[in-house]
């Protein structure tokens, strides 16, 4: 039998991956350096800012040992600018620009290892984990935001605008169709996956009987592309 879970990642799994993102905190307590699996952590000296993984930041925040500095794109100003872009322009807002590749090293940068959510991230682009990171920060540290309610509202607006776009893209998802998914975030991919695969599967099922009938005909007549083409033409009429 099939797995009980749907294909792809479940939302908690995506959120778990997102917890590797670096965020900026202002520690409120001295902490010695830690040797973590993900790399060494510098000692924390209040009120010096530090960039640490999100999971640790959430832990420290819960114990009230740190304040989280929301990334610049989580400010009402930049969110409303991005929302305006999303509502006016047909494509998704572009993801943050990749930094120039460090020459000589084989280290390849991809979202969890990019500083996309620290205090010095770009303000005008949503990083890959924007939705899950934003909602986790809003849940754990609403008092560290200037205007948490406004941010929450804008995030919800953004999510709806972008999901609507994704669903609209499904309309062209017939055989050979495609949707450009540049700038779509991790959670959105996860959310849309079941729907899109469902649609594609459904389309295939609808087309299946016709496909089989054609194959049948092909076998009877002996396969010939030109004839096939003619048959199609006949069908159309």
């Amino acid at each position, binding site marked *: 039998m099939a797995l009980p879970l749907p294909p792809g990642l479940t939302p908690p799994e995506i959120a778990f991956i997102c917890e590797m993102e670096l965020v900026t905190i*202002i520690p409120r307590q001295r902490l010695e350096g830690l040797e973590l699996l993900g790399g060494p952590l510098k000692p924390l*000296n209040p*009120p*010096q*800012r530090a*960039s640490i993984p999100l999971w640790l930041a959430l832990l420290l925040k819960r114990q009230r040992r740190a304040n989280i*500095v929301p990334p610049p794109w989580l400010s009402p100003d930049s969110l409303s600018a991005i929302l305006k872009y999303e509502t006016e322009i047909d494509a998704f807002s572009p993801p943050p*620009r990749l930094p*120039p590749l460090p020459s000589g090293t084989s280290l390849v940068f991809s979202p969890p290892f990019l500083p996309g959510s620290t205090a010095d991230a770009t303000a005008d682009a949503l990083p890959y984990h924007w939705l899950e990171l934003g909602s986790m920060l809003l849940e754990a540290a609403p008092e560290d935001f200037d205007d948490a309610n406004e941010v929450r509202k804008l995030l919800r607006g953004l999510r709806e605008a972008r999901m609507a776009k994704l669903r609209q893209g499904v309309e062209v998802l017939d055989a050979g169709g495609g949707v450009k998914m540049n700038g779509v975030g991790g959670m959105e991919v996860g959310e849309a996956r079941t729907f899109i695969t469902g649609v594609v599967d459904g389309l295939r099922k609808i087309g299946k009987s016709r496909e089989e009938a054609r194959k049948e005909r092909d076998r009877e007549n002996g396969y010939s592309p030109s004839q096939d083409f003619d048959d199609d033409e006949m069908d159309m009429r």
Partner: protein
Amino acid sequence: MAFPQPPRGRYAHAPGPTFLAYSPNGQKLVTAGVDNFCRVFTTGSDDEPLNVDDCQENNLAVAAGNDFFITGAEDGTVNKYAMATSDGDGGDILWRSTLPIRDVALSPDGAWVAVASDELVVHVIHTKDIQMVKRLRDQNRSVRHVSFNKSGTQLAVSCVDGSLYIYSMDSEEPELVQKVDDMIKRTEPEAESSARVLWHPDGTAFATPTGLREMQVMSTGDWAKHKTFKTEHRADITAAAWSPNGALLVTTSNDLSICLWDAKTQKLLKKYDDVKATILAMAWHPTQNILSYTNNEGLLYMHTNFVPPELQHFLRLPLQAAPYFHNPSEGRGNSPTTNLVNGLKHVLPERRARAGSADSLDDLLGDEFRDDDLDMPDEADDGFVIDDDGAGYTNGLGKRTNGHLGPLESMSKRRPTAPVFQPQIHEPFQPGGTPWRGNRRLLCCTLLGYVSTISQEGTHYTAEVRFYNDREYTNVRFTDVFGYDKAALTEHGTLFSCQPKGSIPAMIYYRPHETWTTRADWRTNLPAGESVTAIALSHSYVVVTTSANYVRIYSLFGLPLRVFRQKASPVVTCAAWRDYVLTIGNGPVSGDGTSQLLYTIENVKRDEICQSEDIVALPPNTTLTSVFFSSDGDPYIYDSDGVLLTLLHWRTNGQARWVPMLDTKCLSRRAGGGKQESYWPVSVSQDANGKHVFHCMIVKGSEKYPTHPPPMLSEFALEIPLSSAIDKGRQEKEPDVDPMFDEEEESGKKPESKQQQHEQDYILSSVLHTQLSETISHTRPTTYQKQDLSNLDVQIDRSLLQLLALECLAGEDRGMKALELVTLMRNSNGKMLDLAGKVAERYNRDMLRDKIQELAERRLMSNEEEEDEL
């Protein structure tokens, strides 16, 4: 004067809402009501009023200038009539609105009229040229009231949805200054209850009726709520008015009573219960003791001697300050510098307030024959100064105040009347301390934490010390009866000071955080009459500068160690770090009329002066905002232009030089130009990566000071201003056009920005290197410092090496510059010149490589020679 009679109502209009306005000179009183005429009453005359016919019906608002008045009617027209003639010159239509007019307001100079209607937009129309219209569009609902402040620079708009909008009218295009949401009540457009903004005559505050039937005062300095008049009206307030000098407030409501309040104490002085109908509009006569009001029955009352004789001294007071908890401009002047005149005029004995002359004509004839009662057509010509608009021309005794006199000139009559040269001095301030914002105030902000105080109803204060590292230190909160107004904070303790109050002298209070015995906090009094101008706390000393120009230095246990008089005076501020004390005072007057600031740095322990009376380099029209020592122990200043400067070579006498380390105007976050914010400096220290950063609090909008609770600290990397922010902004923006194609674009434009980056690295690390090597040569260096120094050495060479690579890439003809870069290298680890040679080789610059080799050999030789000599 006759016994006060109950006021006699005069039938001004048919029963219905009636409104009135006094002309600014107080001679005429205009009423408007449901009738199709307006009436012009003359003050002090019982004759029949002048009727101005052919007006619109159902007038809902009226405003008056000296020779014309303006009405707003329910049919949506705003008309202007001449005061003198009975037909009002026919009446010019100034504005026609589609919806009923609710209010009109005339600017004090009579040039502009603001029109509130049921439309969302408030129109401000020029009274002479109706083509000139300003539009205020920020309202979400229709507007009930508009009112200009006393100088006409700001317009307050009361909206039916309970919001106030304050616009600045200075500029061509009016700008929304502030939106206040929680002051006035939501009302219907036709409601009788008022939401009008009443500007206090001193121009720095206004009052509005609130939903709780109170009069709430708000300051325009900090947009904080100040004192409240807790009226006992049993219904909504329908009208209110400040007396012309701001000392009295009168309110009335639907419950048919008029209350008179003392503005200073907010106490009820008198209550009139004999009101027949709801009063809708109320106005004080600009100079006399007359309150006129109109009600919703069409009656006009001119209540002469409204203020009873026993209270009339209130009316003779000069212009009073608005009732604040704390004046927001106190502590740090809102104006950057103050006149010497203001500071000295109460001190000089010959400049005390002039008493009224004995047996003067006014005295003999009594109050009713005072000058201002006469209706003089043109007061300006006869040289008499009459305080008819309450602006403080006279001191309440019929004499001029001293404000018009020059500061230090002799009384000789033959002085030429050229403008008097008035030197301006810098006000004293406490680094990190803010003025009062509402009832809160920050006394000091450091990297360790901050000290704040909250005023509790003016009787006592709650002082609070909060740490960013709240595990290591415990936050402190205590009740303060002395009113501490300055504080300083270090790892060891907190220092407070308070000003002398009456017979209690000024006091200093030191409170250590923790000790191994019982906590030994101590207090010391200063000599009577001496007040504290600034305090500073270091790891080993307490520094106090006082109004008597003394610098007093105590040990951390309260032992006085030094007392000396500061050479540069008056004192401005001070700062301290370990054994070093920096004091700043006003020095000689420079070309632009402001006094130059002079600083002195000395080492208390060794008793030697590092810098004596050197100049704090500030450009003209700039003031000092803060002075502090960085966590590495280098002096930094932050000026009102937003530039952070450090003092280089400050331990060597005569060598000190101010170096800009960061210009906050050039920050990349300001590049778009849309952001209006300022930065409240806190400190400079190294961040987690060892880079030097400027810690500050971001203050949004036009406000300059953070409030309690302060915003989170922000960090900005130091950046010596080399290129302007606009350049950087463009470089950041252009590649954003399409993120997919930036790879190609980058290669095209990178070298330039890369070069700027490396140049920035080079000069910044050189400055920091100089700073650190000075520190190391004067103190016992720690291993960390030594490590930092060699890191900086490497950093300098690395940036030079990268610049060299760019030069080599650029072409053969840049060889000279490339060689210059190589000669600048410090080569501390001996490998850099080899690396430079390799770079030249990689780009096939053989000539250059030979030259570099030559240079390396020469250096090696000279090093060996030096070693031989040793």
